[in-house]
């Protein structure tokens, strides 16, 4: 696998394309993570970190939608939507920065 964990971007340290770094918080713990793969990440956004490198920005809208659909299915077992074919997958758009 690849153990990768979501953490919240709390401060940018460096914006150099190759040496980009930000402080990322995992529960009570902060660690500087390399941001070369997600230079567009904003403060307050969650990034998925693997081996010290952020490899994606969590799509909050997609996460919200997934959970909502799952919970809706629980309330009404008749609603059993199939999966979303790839062409239906929404693309990520940056979220407003809650830290500002």
């Amino acid at each position: 696998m690849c153990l990768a964990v979501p953490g919240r971007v709390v401060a940018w340290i460096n914006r150099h394309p190759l040496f980009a770094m930000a402080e990322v918080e995992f529960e009570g713990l902060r660690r500087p993570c390399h941001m070369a793969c997600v230079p567009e990440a904003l403060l307050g956004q969650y990034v998925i970190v693997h081996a010290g490198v952020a490899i994606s920005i969590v799509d909050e809208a997609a996460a919200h939608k997934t959970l909502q659909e799952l919970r809706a299915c629980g309330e009404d077992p008749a609603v059993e939507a199939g999966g979303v074919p790839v062409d239906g997958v929404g693309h990520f758009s940056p979220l407003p920065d809650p830290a500002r």
Partner: protein
Amino acid sequence: MKHLDEYRDPALARQLVDRIRRHASRRWTLMEVCGGQTHSLLRHGIDQELDGLVDLLHGPGCPVCVTPAEQIDQACRLAQLPGVVVTSFGDMLRVPGRHSSLLQARRAGGDVRLVYSPLDAVKLAQRHPDRVVVFLAVGFETTVPATALAVLQATELGLTNFRILTAHVRVLPAMEVIAGEPTSQVQAFLAAGHVCTVAGHQVYDSFCERHRLPVVVTGFEPVDLLEGIWECVRQLEAGESHVVNAYQRSVRETGNESGQRLIERVYSVADVSWRGLGTIPDGGYQLRPEFARCDARLLLQEAFAPSADEPTVCPAREVLLGRLRPPDCPHFGGSCTPETPLGAPMVSGEGCCAAHYRYARSALEPRETSTGDDCDVK
């Protein structure tokens, strides 16, 4: 933790299990190709929960396990050279090569250190200009951007004392080998969520079309896994085969393009050997010629002589292809345990045999004895 805890909700998991139970008209055989998923499935008992509904075969999902013994031996030999520090991830240190593991090499006096990130190895090289720091780079596509970044940073910093021993592998070619086996029982694949986070999922389109198998990009938490399994079952019941992304919060269709560019700059695709599976065409990466000076094997020039694949009684290939279930192996739990592994799937905690050994021995609750032969639907 946000974006983790929500997907460990027992109520949501229960509801997905029920949904799978209601819809599965027969027993389906799925394969996950990610050690993290294997770990999570067994840890949370999802395999037991779905017993009789879905058979989960554990593919060659652990990059640590499939790292050729020869490369571990090389790393151990490097660690014995004066002035050389060998670094790698914690789980890599325990894995035995033919002669020893890196932890044993450390006990024998070698300078072996664990790092959380390849970039930490670069920092180490910066702090110790008098030593040569070698990073044993293992991992699937997920980890390659980190290694590539390390090589690029070291180059930019003018560090001549940072070297890489590359053992990175690519998942899709291994899936091709498995799906292409004439006796393959796999009816659908759970694609590895973090590999796809980097590589995207459009790369699976042609695979899916050619093999007519559902491919569902799946995350790692119980609810993620069950959602992926549910989507496989739904497609199988409907006679469909699409690529579906069930890990949308992390995976985009085209993956992480910045990460792919990093890989592209440093590495080219190559035929490489997988421990237990043999050589897989396009199954891994090699440093591009312009970074050849970073290759740690240069340090071993005279000592480096490729030798034949390890002799073993381990039917690793059968296991990794999903044709032999770990508990059915004659060596499992007897002569082959995590302490004395005979082959690839037992060597690291994420290997499918090791995971089985750890979790599946529980069987605390008496399982219903199935009346039919397990094999008749596979």
